[in-house]
């Protein structure tokens, strides 16, 4: 009886949420997003603590990093997020073909990001910047490699959603899977726009 009541409540909540647009996607993806944002928050706390204890190396560290690579990747991440919202808008207008096309734009952006990061890491190694150089670069590698992994599996998830779109799984009114990956991808973007000033810009 209790189970039935809670199922009805859940159904009611989900229906009303869809009607008013209260929660984009489903609650599970938001639990994941908030958990990931908390994980990144812990990393940022580590960054701030390491910075106030080691002001000298955190003042010189960003100067030796490749600002161009960091800037290109910021532009690429923001653009990928733009592609994703355009895919959502296209799907709502009932245009599945355009929606999938915008998502391919996001996947290509993710690929460019990973490639730029790979060359940035190689450039670092050539300039004697490794995880063991000093605490700034240890923090830099820990945070950026973690983010690198997120872009990797986020891109893979977008490819899955494109496959679902092509399989006709989504319509202009029913496309929760697309919204879920959309908000998750924006979270990956949010993490990067925070990482960029902390590691590349502010000294």
């Amino acid at each position, binding site marked *: 009886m209790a189970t039935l009541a809670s199922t009805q409540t859940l159904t009611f909540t989900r229906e009303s949420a869809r009607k008013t647009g209260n929660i984009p996607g489903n609650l599970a993806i938001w639990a994941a997003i908030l958990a990931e944002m908390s994980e990144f928050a812990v990393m940022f706390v580590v960054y*701030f603590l390491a910075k106030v204890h080691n002001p000298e190396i955190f003042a010189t560290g960003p100067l030796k990093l490749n600002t161009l690579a960091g800037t290109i990747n*910021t532009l690429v991440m*923001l653009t990928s997020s*733009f592609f994703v919202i355009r895919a959502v808008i296209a799907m709502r207008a009932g245009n599945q073909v355009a929606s999938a096309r915008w998502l391919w734009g996001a996947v290509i952006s993710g690929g460019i990001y990973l490639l730029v990061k790979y060359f940035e890491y190689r450039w670092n190694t050539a300039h004697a910047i490794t995880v063991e150089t000093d605490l700034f670069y240890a923090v830099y590698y820990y945070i950026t490699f973690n983010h690198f992994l997120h872009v990797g599996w986020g891109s893979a998830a977008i490819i899955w959603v494109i496959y679902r779109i092509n399989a006709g799984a989504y319509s202009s009114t029913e496309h929760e899977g697309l919204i879920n990956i959309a908000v998750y991808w924006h979270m990956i973007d*949010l993490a990067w*726009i925070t990482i960029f000033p902390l590691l590349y810009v*502010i000294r």
Partner: protein
Amino acid sequence: MNQIQLVNRLWLILIALTLFSAFMAEQSEQGLGSISIMALVLAIKGRIIVDYFMELKHANRLLRTLMQIYFYVIPAMIIAAYLYPEQIARWATLK
């Protein structure tokens, strides 16, 4: 302005803000003014993505607040770490 025009414009604003940050990164001296501007740029970019790309502007208030807090706290930490590094280091030292 429809939603497509709105997100197109916001994308251009985000690009412009990023190029501005990159320009700031190349400046030799960073003071309270430039640090505050960079913190503000982060706050604006975060707010745009949360409200218009994640579409939380008119969504569940708790979710929106939780996401927005991030882009108040981290810019504030950036300024605090610049102004009071020694005090924060003292508070965060185990004795």
